């Protein structure tokens, strides 16, 4: 697309984006709700989005699907009072809806499969009913204007005249960063155009390309995005991405995953775990004859005999050699 058309496209999307931002009052309500209260809290929402991220990665869905799903979810939650027990159904139906719109048929998995892999408790008919409700309430037909839309456009603008720059400014990396940001609820308030621009600028600063930075200023002026707003979201983005990139592993409070194994393996697991023999330990280098009465006593597992067989030249057995279980 040539530069002029790109700018026009940007403008058009910019004007549309208002329709696709979740209601602010709704988002505030969620943020102020306490965990374990009667409503959805920010943590609940974030956990659900994490789940959706996991599922969309597993099924190999595109970033578009994931971003669209999160957008639908946020808009729905901001609009309707959802009970926490229905949250996972809402989340999965958003994902399914998004997948149906954005994925080619070959990649699409059925609702059944989504439920099975996602280890959900509801049925496929529950899922399709919820999908209808969501689509209806959000007047959802085919797509939405999301930060990803802008990201793609901005990326093309930034590449501009020289497509060789693709190596330097990687779209995949930007998409991954966007996904990381969306997992945090605070970014749902941001305007898609601003969020995407903040992300792009963050990456361009990292690769230190002056002229690409110029391009972004140009875009900013074109869309009339306020400096303050861009700055505000820029800081947030930087913080979020430094967490994402840190080597420290984070374990959010996720649901414990279900490990279902076949009967044979389960039997196998049970029988192998009880194998301590019932012969008492014979210490090397000495057997105190007066201890021969112990042979009737059951010193079954190794650990006990380690500490009790210290007689003679048996040696000292450090306790840290105990089996860890």
């Amino acid at each position, binding site marked *: 697309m040539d530069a002029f058309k790109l700018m026009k496209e940007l403008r058009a999307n910019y004007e549309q984006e208002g329709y696709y931002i979740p209601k602010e009052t709704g988002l505030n309500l969620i943020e102020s709700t306490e965990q374990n209260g009667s409503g959805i809290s920010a943590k609940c929402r974030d956990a659900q989005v994490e789940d959706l991220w996991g599922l969309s990665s597993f099924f190999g869905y595109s970033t578009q699907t994931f971003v669209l799903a999160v957008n639908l979810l946020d808009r729905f939650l901001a609009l309707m009072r959802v009970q926490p027990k229905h949250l996972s159904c809402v989340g999965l139906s958003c994902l399914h809806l998004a997948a149906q719109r954005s994925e080619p048929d070959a990649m699409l998995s059925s609702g059944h499969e989504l439920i099975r892999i996602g280890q959900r408790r509801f049925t496929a008919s529950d899922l399709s009913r919820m999908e209808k409700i969501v689509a209806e309430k959000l007047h959802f037909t085919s797509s939405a204007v999301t930060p990803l839309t802008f990201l793609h456009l901005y990326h093309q603008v930034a590449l501009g005249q020289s497509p060789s720059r693709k190596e330097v400014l990687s779209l995949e990396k930007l998409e*991954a960063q966007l*996904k990381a940001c969306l997992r945090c609820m605070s970014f749902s308030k941001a305007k898609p155009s601003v969020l995407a621009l903040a992300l792009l600028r963050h990456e361009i600063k990292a690769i230190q390309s002056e002229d690409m930075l110029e391009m972004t200023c140009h875009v900013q002026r074109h869309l009339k995005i306020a400096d303050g707003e861009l700055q505000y979201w820029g800081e947030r983005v930087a913080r979020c991405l430094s967490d994402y990139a840190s080597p420290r592993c984070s374990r959010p409070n*996720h649901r414990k995953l279900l490990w279902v194994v076949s009967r044979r393996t389960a039997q*196998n697991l049970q029988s*192998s775990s009880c194998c301590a023999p019932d012969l008492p330990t014979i210490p090397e280098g000495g057997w105190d004859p007066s201890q021969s009465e112990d042979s009737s006593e059951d010193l079954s597992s*190794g650990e006990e005999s380690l500490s009790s067989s210290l007689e003679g030249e048996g040696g000292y057995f450090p306790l840290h*050699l105990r089996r860890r279980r």
Partner: protein
Amino acid sequence: MSSAATTPPSVDKVDGFSRKSVRKAKQKRSQSSSQFRSQGKPIELTPLPLLKDVPAPEQPELFLKKLQQCCTVFDFMDTLSDLKMKEYKRSTLNELVDYVTVSRGYLTEQAYPDVVKMVSYNIFRTLPPSDSNEFDPEEDEPTLEASWPHLQLVYEFFIRFLESQEFQPSIAKKYIDQKFVLQLLELFDSEDPRERDYLKTVLHRIYGKFLGLRAFIRKQINNIFLRFVYETEHFNGVAELLEILGSIINGFALPLKAEHKQFLVKVLIPLHTVRSLSLFHAQLAYCIVQFLEKDPALTEPVIRGLLKFWPKTCSQKEVMFLGELEEILDVIEPTQFVKIQEPLFRQISRCVSSPHFQVAERALYYWNNEYIMSLIEENSSVILPIMFASLYRISKEHWNPAIVALVYNVLKAFMEMNSTLFDELTATYKSDRQREKKKEKEREDLWKKLEDLELKRGLRSDGIIPT
């Protein structure tokens, strides 16, 4: 004394595969022995008074007389002969067992050789040959020892004798010597599991009490195992010997002697290669884990050894290996883990993609183990790249839906451990796949071009290959 004509084996087909156990339609050969052939006439033993009925000073001498009487062996294959005498011997043996358990002061120096003699006469015998090469220890019923009613009491008696308070190894060692132990070890090949159980206890006590025989016993056990692994692959007593070894290993002094380390590497690890591993795997795994608890530095050679002998065609064995590996990982030290994580997870990655669902399932279940998970987490940057490709591939391609669900659990765990790396790997995987697809397409196009060329060539009438 083999029995009547054999009936032709009937083969029962189940799913097209004949069941081995049904093939044994022919009757088992009886356990006759040349021990009994010389006894043409019936055996007569003069009944002796009961020990409790005799005053204390006379008891030791009566004891010796009874021992002497019990040296007579009876043929149990002939169920009708000498019934009265067999019963007499049985009750005498019973009496001896009780006597040894409760009495004080009965054990004179003379008793020792007589006891050993009586035990030797009864238990040391040539074992009947196993029914056929087709004896499958897992499926077929073992041939039980016919003279068990007497044998059991002899073993019971011997054990109580060894465990008795008055027992003095310094006297006994003249009679319980290397020759005795050698014959004892040969008996471990008995098909009767009850006999092997008693033998296990007997040898355990002897090992414990006779320090001078320990090295010899260890050496002989080594020989048995080595012959088993490299020559015959037949020996019924491996599990029992390993149980005894377990209690010996448990008692090793630190630092471990070189002899013991050699034993681990040269004997225990190769034991894993035998076909009948399932019969003694639990005991073998226990021994290995005990070794590693004693000396963690042995972890690397052990795991490398297991990986070297990893089963390639027997899935049942693979599942056993995976179980053993998990037990080893349960006790591994983090520093040792880092040394072997790469070859280890390469193997696990192969197991996880195995089309045999039990193998895949067992391997995936490692991720349910908290300690292993913590080790993986600490080293996720090394482990994730190794596992990623096969996990991702089987999530799309495996035939078993339960496996796909488990893979999700594992991938989810990885996603949470290290999101950046995970995203990077996903992106690389996808671009690799695209590149591969492109190459495939190019190759197909090339073939198509060649085909077209071939057609064109065929159309030329002079058949000259165009250059």
